């Protein structure tokens, strides 16, 4: 019985409305994709269904690798779950720092209208979460050590909703920690000012804004259904097509559209790229990245070897600099001596 429970627990995300792959969100995504295909591309229902459930996508080697990684990581991540503890520790530390500060505003706004407090808190949590996702994602692409592990996600050559789980386990840890670091201080600050009236507006237990993100097709970001938003709207919200562009193999699309739900961060920090209406975009990595769409050994272990190479390279450059610097010193010492002899 325990064994069956454990097997079932591997699939628990599909029944958890806090997760993107919750069956309800997946169903809605199919519906949105159908409407998009039939209304915008004027295809028949049969053709639309055929396009959405494309065997070449869902049964590709890359997608099968996604499925395998899903299971492997579920088992591995079972051992890494002290994230809630981290969040409590961070929130308490920030809260006590505020309590100790000279700021005399502890519970100062406790009498504020509850609707306002809950509304503000729901927005603050969403925004802080989304901003830190943007930043983390940006660093994942820009810092070589982080890119080594994030490459695993970008090695996917076909995109399905399960691709969201195609990550190196270390990236999973980093993302979960980010969540604690982002939300802990927000909770602490609100609790400091508003006390016990802090709460979230939720639907099925999920922050209403995150719920909105999911019911409007968050799963289609990792799909071949290139839903676009009007140009102005793609400056505010990331459309599925914009995220697909982020996965594009084309060089002009590199390092664009890091955003999760909001596009404003990309707009603000110069990494925005609106969608172009390109069909059948090629996804994946340049061969020079020496990754693989399907080989699990490469996907799990290559980042470690890359880190080793990066560390050795760094050590060599430090050594070279030090020897150059000491060379200069001895030069000047020699000149001193020469002067004295004169």
């Amino acid at each position, binding site marked *: 019985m325990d064994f069956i429970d454990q097997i079932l627990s591997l699939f628990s995300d599909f029944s958890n409305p806090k997760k993107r792959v919750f069956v309800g969100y997946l169903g809605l995504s199919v519906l949105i994709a159908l409407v998009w295909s039939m209304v915008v591309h004027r295809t028949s229902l049969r053709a639309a269904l055929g396009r959405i459930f494309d065997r070449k996508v869902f049964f590709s080697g890359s997608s099968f690798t996604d499925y395998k990684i899903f299971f492997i990581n579920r088992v591995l991540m079972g051992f890494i779950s002290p994230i809630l503890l981290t969040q409590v520790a961070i929130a308490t530390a920030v809260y006590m720092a505020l309590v100790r500060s000279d700021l005399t505003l502890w519970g100062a706004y406790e009498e504020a209208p509850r609707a306002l407090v809950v509304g503000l808190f729901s927005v603050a949590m969403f925004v802080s979460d989304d901003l830190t996702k943007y930043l983390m994602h940006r660093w994942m692409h820009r810092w070589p050590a982080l890119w080594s592990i994030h490459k695993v996600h970008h090695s996917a050559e076909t995109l399905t909703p399960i691709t969201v*789980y195609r990550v190196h386990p270390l990236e999973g840890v980093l993302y979960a920690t980010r969540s604690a670091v982002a939300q802990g201080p927000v909770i602490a600050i609100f609790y400091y000012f508003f006390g*016990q009236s802090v709460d979230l507006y939720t639907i099925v237990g999920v922050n209403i804004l995150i719920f909105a993100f999911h019911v409007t097709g968050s799963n289609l970001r990792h799909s071949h259904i290139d839903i676009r938003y009007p140009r102005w709207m793609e400056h505010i919200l990331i459309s599925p097509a914009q995220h697909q562009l982020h996965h594009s193999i084309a060089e002009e699309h590199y390092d664009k559209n890091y955003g999760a739900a909001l596009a404003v961060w990309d707009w603000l920090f110069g990494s925005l790229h609106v969608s172009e209406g390109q069909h059948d975009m090629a996804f994946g990595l340049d061969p020079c990245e020496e990754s693989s769409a399907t080989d699990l050994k490469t996907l799990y272990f290559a980042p470690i070897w890359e880190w080793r190479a990066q560390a050795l390279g760094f050590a060599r450059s430090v050594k070279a600099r030090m020897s150059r610097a000491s060379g200069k010193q001895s030069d000047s010492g020699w000149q001193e001596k020469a002067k004295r002899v004169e």
Partner: protein
Amino acid sequence: MRRALTLGTTILAAGLLTSVASADTYGPFPITEKSYSGDKTNSVSYTGQVARSVLLDSLKSLAGQANGGGNAAELKATMMKYYAGSDEDLPIVSHKSKDGFPIKQTTLHEISKGKNVSGKTYKGLVPGWPGNMTGGEVMEHLIHHASMSDGGFDAANGYDYGQLIQKFGLGAMAFNQAVDNYLDEKLGADNKPNNKPYSDGAAYTGKEHSWDEAFGYFGAPAHALNLEAKQAYNISKKKDLAAGDANGDGVIDLKTEMTFGGAYYAADADKSGTDYLPTITSAFIEGRKVISSADGAALTDAQRAQLVAYAETIETEWMKVLAEATFKYAGSVYADIEKIRADKNNVDPDLYRAYGKHWGELKGFAMAMQTGKDNIGGTAVRLNRLIGFSPVTLDESVVTGIDADGNFVRDAKMSWNAYQLNMLKVQDLMIKEFGVEARKNDATENLAELIKTLDTDSGGAETD
């Protein structure tokens, strides 16, 4: 051959077990005093300290008998007998037998004669209490007001006198006497030396009895090391006869089997995972072994150095116990204010009474912390300022001092909100200065609870 081996092993094991069992209890220890000619075989004696603990606890019980002024004079006279001593044999008010928990003694003289609290109360200034009084004067001031209160409670000023007397006394009498007297100057080479009897004709040496007296003030049952924290705690609550009745005679002997004062609060903290009670008790037992091993000779410098090290452990850990209790009751007061603020114009009298009780415990322990050997300086100032002279009362006023007649003056206001924040700061201070670990009633638990309730997992590990 095999049988002989088995027998030998059994005897050896039994011998080991016996020696472990005796090593685990505070006493009996042999008589080493050479001048003793009586028939006693155990040199351990701390009944005077047990009697004083009983007097202190009885004062708390007596405060509860005040009926709003009607019996003030009579009650004050009675309380003063328990405080300052009496030739009469006083009944034990605090530790009475109950169904399933019989107690051997019913009067003070069955424990020890001629004992009082007043003679052993802190003689230094108590800055945490209004009126620039010494420890003894504070006690008498509290007794005076307790006798006029309503069941020990003074609603106008928010004082629970019984709690204040008892908790302050745990410091001003027990902690102070133990760490600032018996474990301090009495460890000196020439003070109560080990090669002389404590007093003429005594069955114990100067050092043996000094050490025993300190242990007596701590209040642990002699067999504390054989008990779980919960058992030691429940003895005091009269809930666990089997745990307390070490000699199996069916009754609790207050002299050796009860958990008093400091030991009780050590056990209370230990229920949350700390080990104050075993650490302190072990230090006492190990120290006593060092003294016994001298066999009535003067202690060497090395032996005294060992004792000083044990005494330091005892003092540090005991201080932490007081800090844990201060932390705990700051948390209780915090939680009470949270409830009071929910409907502050219509405060439930029972809630206000509980708030006063918790504040009395908090204040008592906070003042107790300032009666040790070491001056805690700036920490004491912060603690006294955060807690103030009184809790915030129903009209949001606080006590600011006393008038010429010793009556409390409340001429300042403080909001519930500000005072609640102070409680949080008291807890923070206890963590920072004393490293408290049990942290009962941690006020930041509310935040942790909120985070658990919010369950803000937003797919944190999902990667785009």
